């Protein structure tokens, strides 16, 4: 069964369609980049899957059942800018929030949860920052805390919203290592990404999206100049046709 099956999903904000009739199925164990211009509905797609924005029509299934029934199989990394990092809490506490979905009502995280959270911090190289107040972390460190929180969710499908935005080179490398490790464990990871230059290097599958889906498949088949032009329209320029390295003219 496919980790993610979406058919005919349409999402509208104030009658303005943001996603139109998107249909795709993602096979298990792939690293998938969701790529498209600003306003293409990449984040909206993730939010619709996670039930954070209402869909106007269409069905969304995670391993054959509704998201509601499969919450525990899904991990989520929101955009770093979506929360207030001045909130009075420390890194370990944020990572522990990844356990909340497993703990249930009226209970506190226990020793086992703390252990899982510390392991997750260790995996992203942040163990020594466990007790650090989150506002005192750099942007890259905050992003890694978010990743650790998703790891603590102990999921099989992960959705990550722009994890590479505004991070340092060390964090970018750490994230990539982590994504590959998740893939090696047979997990499926969907990542909203906007740096076209790294798509080929990072993702084995690519989903090109601009309100409507343009293409989905193995990156070497899908990530073509032709498809990119369809996705980005006139905003795309090519540095070097030979190496096929596109970039976006903003």
């Amino acid at each position, binding site marked *: 069964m496919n980790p993610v099956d979406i058919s005919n999903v349409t999402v509208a904000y104030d009658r303005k369609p943001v996603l139109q009739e998107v249909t795709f199925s993602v096979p298990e164990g792939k690293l998938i980049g969701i790529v498209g211009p600003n306003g293409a509905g990449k984040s909206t797609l993730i*939010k619709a899957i*996670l*039930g*954070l924005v209402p869909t106007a029509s269409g069905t969304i299934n995670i391993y054959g059942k509704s998201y*509601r029934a499969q*919450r525990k199989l*899904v991990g*989520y990394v*929101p955009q770093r800018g*979506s*929360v*207030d990092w001045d*909130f*009075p*809490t*420390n890194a370990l506490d*944020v990572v522990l*929030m990844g356990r*909340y*979905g497993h*703990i249930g*009502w*009226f209970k*506190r*995280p226990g020793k086992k949860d703390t252990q899982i959270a510390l392991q997750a911090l260790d995996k992203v190289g942040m163990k020594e920052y466990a007790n650090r*107040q989150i*506002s005192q972390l750099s942007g890259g460190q905050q992003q890694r805390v978010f990743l650790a*929180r998703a790891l603590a*969710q102990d999921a099989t499908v992960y959705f990550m919203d722009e994890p590479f935005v505004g991070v340092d080179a060390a964090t970018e490398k750490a994230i990539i290592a982590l994504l590959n490790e998740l893939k090696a464990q047979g997990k499926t990871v969907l990542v909203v990404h906007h740096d076209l230059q790294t798509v080929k290097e990072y993702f084995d599958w690519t989903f090109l999206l601009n309100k409507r889906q343009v293409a989905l498949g193995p990156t070497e088949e899908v990530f073509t100049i032709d498809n990119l032009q369809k996705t980005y329209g006139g905003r795309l320029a090519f540095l070097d046709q030979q190496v096929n390295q596109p970039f976006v003219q903003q």
Partner: protein
Amino acid sequence: MSYGAWIILTGSLVGVSCGIVGCFLILRKMAMLADAISHTVLLGIVLAYLVSHSLEGIYMLVGAGIIGLLTAFLVQVLDTSGVQSDAAIGVVFTSLFAFGVILLSAFAGQVHLDVNHALMGEITFIPWDTLTINGIELGPSAVWMLGIVLILNLTLIFLFYKEIKISSFDPAMATAIGIPVVFIHYLLMSMVSITTVASFDSVGAILVVAMLIVPGATAYLLTDRLLIMLLISAFIGVASAVGGYYAALAWNVSIAGSMASIAGLIFGATFILSPKHGLMGKVLARRSISAQHS
């Protein structure tokens, strides 16, 4: 217990209850919603009286709870349908409050309440309005009401601590993992409503906002831990109540007024002196940075 001791106890209970609930309002950036609810509960109180013909605490709590939730709900509705959120708060709270004032003046003969009392409170009279069951005098009824509300607040926060925490910090994540964020929002709004109405008699609608917001805002400057923030805020609430009482005695001024003023003074001092987030701390940090680079 002496007259003064009852007033101090009443003020302290207001301080603890408001201080704790207020922290969550600060963290969720909803201070103005508290301002709105503190005024609209007047309508709840008047309606509760007109329905029940009694000024007993339980009716007041229910009436205020319902109107408080209605306030939060209407603000939410206007906000999501395109009205700016501060304008939404302004429209809803003045309308409901005005309706409460009209009802109050229309039935002024029947209701043992007046607008002045509702706005400013009268903590001085608290000790005389006692709760008597089977002929046994059990102390001021305001103390009982505040005590019950405090216990209720603490129980709810204890039970839903992690849900409140995650939905305040990261509502999207909270929703994604199945935490009922909307329920938690209205739970907090109910707590604000009943805390406000329980504090009403003592400090009134305007000053209760000071007790809700100022201790939490002060505690926010002093710590990086949520639990510690709640404790500091409760402590500042009590300190304002006790300090305010003695200041009022010394200068023969309004007790509720000086309680709120003391809270303001504590905030001012913290804002300047706090090592972490205060002005002084920032100046010192800037100096040490420029010293390193010169």
